[in-house]
């Protein structure tokens, strides 16, 4: 046994890194963070230049009744913050996004997992699923209004339908790509169908499911906002169409800013989840 322990320390095979050959590096702050810092500095510079040019050129190069200007947008945001418009409407939209996302992704993940586990049945359904997937979800909005009215339900469902297909298809693909060898390994250990499903198929399809969950986030937002644009009296979509109808471009841009902040926060949250779940994957396949 002692020979084995020795080889694990000395042979070049342990190049994958381990306790045996981890060497402390005394790198300076700049060596460690230089790259990240310059990238963020570049991003900040880009924003400053863009906003600066927009502010300065507005009024003589562009007509501000069409393009507005950053200072006007900021003023509008401050006003909306003061009278509560911003928060009431953002909260409505955020709720629609979250409920729609949860509903759609839960149904998509569950159904994707179950259906893909029965390959023949999945084959039968496949063309119908693809046909439904191909329908532009906006086209469903009028129907949903008839069914559910113009309240929040209709937006939640519109977001859910959009999210559902993305999560469903990615989860199903993940399930179908499970390595046969891993399933056999569990069978050899005496594992039954439940063991295979829980200990191999589920973790293995996690990659596909997470891809689905990640790409679906902006679509939940799209679903909710489109629903609001079609028919509503509250929410950020309503704020956009209402501002546009009164030629208030600053209001439109202010809402867009809020929407992109919401999208960025949601992406960040799923990024955290992804990082936790896929720690076992090679670094280059992650991010």
């Amino acid at each position, binding site marked *: *046994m002692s020979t*084995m322990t020795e080889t694990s320390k000395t*042979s070049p095979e342990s190049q994958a890194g381990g306790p045996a050959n981890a060497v402390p590096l005394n790198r300076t702050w700049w060596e460690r963070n230089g790259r990240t810092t310059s990238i963020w500095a570049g991003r900040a510079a880009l924003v400053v230049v863009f906003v600066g040019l927009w502010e300065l050129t507005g009024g003589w190069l562009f007509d501000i009744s069409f393009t507005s200007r950053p200072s006007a947008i900021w003023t509008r945001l401050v006003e909306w913050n003061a009278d509560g418009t911003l928060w009431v409407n953002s909260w409505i939209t955020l709720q629609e996004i979250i409920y729609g996302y949860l509903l759609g992704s839960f149904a998509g993940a569950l159904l994707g997992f179950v259906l893909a586990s029965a390959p023949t049945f999945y084959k039968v359904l496949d063309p119908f699923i693809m046909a439904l997937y191909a329908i532009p979800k906006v086209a469903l909005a009028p129907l949903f209004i008839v069914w559910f009215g113009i309240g929040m339900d209709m937006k939640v469902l519109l977001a859910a339908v959009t999210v559902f297909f993305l999560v469903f298809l990615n989860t199903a693909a993940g399930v179908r790509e499970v*390595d046969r060898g891993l399933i056999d*390994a569990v*069978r*050899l250990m005496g594992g039954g169908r439940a063991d295979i499903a829980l200990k191999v198929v589920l973790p293995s399809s996690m990659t596909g499911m997470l891809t689905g969950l990640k790409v679906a986030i902006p679509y939940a937002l799209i679903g909710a906002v489109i629903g609001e644009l079609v028919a509503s009296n509250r929410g950020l979509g309503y704020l956009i169409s209402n501002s546009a109808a009164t030629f208030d471009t600053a209001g439109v841009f202010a809402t867009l800013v809020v929407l992109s902040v919401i999208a960025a926060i949601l992406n960040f949250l799923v990024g955290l989840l992804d990082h936790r779940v896929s720690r*076992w994957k090679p670094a280059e396949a992650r991010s």
Partner: protein
Amino acid sequence: MSTLIEVRGLTKRFVKDETGIVALRDFGLEVEKGSFVTVLGRSGCGKSTALNLMSGLLKPTEGTVSYRGDPVTGPRTEISYLTQSDTLMPWRDVRRNIEMPMEISGVSKRERREHAEELIRRVGLTGFERHYPRELSGGMRRRASLARMLAGDPETLLMDEPFGALDAQLRTDLQLELLRLWQGSGKTVVFVTHDIEEALLLGDRVVVLGLLGRRVLDKPIELSRPRDADELRVDPTFVSLHREMTEALREGAR
């Protein structure tokens, strides 16, 4: 000694489009309890198919495999099978991979942990318990697989060219390790390889297979143990056995 595994008239045909492809024809083998049998054959002679059938993963087209007199109809926990490729779960770290067979057979969490620690120490992976398979080298992954196989406490080990992809030095280490684990354990081993030296170094008995699993030669190896690879190379008995095996392999390919 009694016969533990008995293989009779085993034939396997795979279906591909409209043609059937025969991988193994009328293959037979008896394995004594507690013995170390090496099966030697060139690639494509049906060695892996034979092991897949013996492990119960595949169902034969014709013929039977029986274990202690019972027909084998599916995988069973007394028989463990180390395949050519790694089948460690990539999302489990080394320790949780090794615990897996015990998890499935319902061993309590504490016992599982203890036994896994013990196995990790035995295969020399101490310090790598929390590493994921992709963070390990090929040799370390093999050792983890070996430990996982032993975690199920099988009576019989089926091994399909387990050390084929490793460098020579590591291969020797793991061969010695396997012999050490086997000697005095009462376990039965069927070890498939295409390497004559490996077959002679490990086996009590070497079975040489030709095309479609035809048995060309079946010979007990009476070299004394422990066998040392470097000394064996100049041993006249070994040299003549080596020649005989080479001849048998050539004969089998016809």
